[in-house]
């Protein structure tokens, strides 16, 4: 699906990553990452498993601390924020987890109400319910409101995970492998949802994926991560129209896997 209404504002930098390094013991995961994401832009970060894609967005939302380098989100340097400031920033940054990370012991309604009632304590019960119903309708799963996460399919869990982040109306969405473990049709539905979220909620997004279809259909720009470094950035066609063996191998591997 082609993105119709982009309205990317290239004068407004939303996320800026500079010289980012991160190691776990002797495993040097990120080795000097630089990335700029502009308002309402969708950037897809492509790469094989273990190349540090998820680590990058976990650093962006402050779940992990970098060894060196700076991460600036909405004008604030993430690493220098105190707990309160970080919590305020996180209200504007939604994070969709690879395994959805729904709270097992809570129903869909409770999962969605959980962040809302704790961050907007002035809301009445009626207002909370209305917001839950509205966001569930946005992801097309109104009928699941009273179900438990264990009763949902993989695709439904992903959608509810996205709905749970959208309920706080974030300015930025970070998607960690949104289509992993899903069948091709459900993957397309999730890709469409990511585009819909951008259009409806005016979000700026980083989509971490190893799925070419997902990167092509959701990313205005694609950044190819290899061994902890970005080796190429540009539109999907610019990145894959190359002689670089590493990118060609990645493309062929994905292509074979989809046959």
């Amino acid at each position, binding site marked *: 699906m082609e993105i119709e209404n982009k309205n990317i504002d290239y004068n407004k930098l939303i996320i800026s990553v500079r010289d980012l390094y991160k190691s776990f013991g002797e495993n040097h995961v990120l080795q000097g990452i630089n990335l700029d994401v502009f308002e309402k832009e969708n950037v897809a970060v492509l790469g094989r498993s273990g190349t540090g894609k998820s680590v990058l967005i976990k650093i962006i939302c402050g779940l992990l601390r970098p060894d060196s380098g700076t991460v600036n989100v909405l004008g604030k340097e993430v690493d220098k924020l105190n707990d309160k400031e970080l919590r305020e920033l996180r209200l504007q940054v939604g994070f969709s987890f*690879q*395994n959805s*990370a729904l709270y*097992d012991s809570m129903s869909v309604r409770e999962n969605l109400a959980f*962040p809302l009632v704790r961050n907007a304590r002035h809301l009445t019960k009626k207002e909370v319910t209305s917001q839950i119903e509205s966001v569930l309708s946005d992801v097309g799963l109104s009928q699941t409101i009273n179900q438990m996460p264990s009763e949902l399919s993989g695709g439904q869990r992903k959608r509810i995970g996205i709905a749970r982040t959208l309920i706080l109306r974030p300015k930025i969405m970070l998607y960690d492998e949104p289509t992993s473990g899903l069948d091709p049709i459900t993957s397309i539905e999730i890709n469409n949802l990511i585009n819909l979220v951008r259009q409806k909620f005016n979000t700026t997004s980083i989509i971490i994926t190893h799925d070419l279809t997902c990167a092509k259909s959701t990313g205005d720009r694609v950044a190819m991560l290899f061994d902890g470094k970005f080796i190429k950035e540009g539109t999907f066609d610019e990145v894959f129209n190359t002689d670089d063996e590493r990118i060609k191998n990645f493309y062929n591997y994905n292509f074979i896997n989809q046959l």
Partner: protein
Amino acid sequence: MYFKKSRDYFISKKVDGFFIDLNNALQFVLRFFKEVFKPPYEFKEIIRQCYQVGYKSLFLITLTGFITGLVFTKQSRPSLSEFGAASWLPSLVAIAIIRALAPLVTALIAAGKVGSNIGAELGSMKVTEQIDAMEVSAVNPFKFLVVSRVLATTLMVPMLMCYTGAVAMLGAFLNVHQNEMTSFVSFFQAAFDKISFLDIFASLIKSVVYGFTIGIVGCYKGFHASNGTEGVGKSANSSVVLSMFLIFVEEILIVQITNSFRT
């Protein structure tokens, strides 16, 4: 190019690891005391956890308490009868139950049932990124998960201890009544004759300490679980083992302290 240098060991990997763990555990306990007084308070979750810890442990506690009282009385009778002191049974049993057995049995049962449950639940939430999900939704997971559970165990273990004591005394009474035909009133009069306020107060303090230990150890182990499902099993297991070890250490310390008040 910059990489954070992996730190060399001061003594050995194991010894350094022990002190790092100890430091982390202390930080965890300090964070609890910092967060517990800070609003907003999760009253609903605290009540839910109290229900989980208290009500759901009742059957096991009742069974264990009753059997402890009954068997302890039955086993003590021959030795006392040998010296013609069977009439001392009620006071002996009461002292044993109130001073030591009720707090210890309750704590060990709670460590096994509640401690492992907390370790496994939080461990599973950790490895499935549910704790991270709370964090990125601008919710403080420590307050919601740790503070509520530790408060629940700290409040409920003393209550369960009182209940265990009562049930164990009932078990003891049934055995004494069956053998010596002692009435309910005479049994309890004789039993509480030798019990002082210090005995009851010390047992309550013990239970508060045990309850706190069970909750904080379970939460710490769960919060620091790693390596997928294997890590969940490990955190549940180590919650029980460490809680029980600490309970015995605390028992020795508290007995030493309370004994110094007796003399």
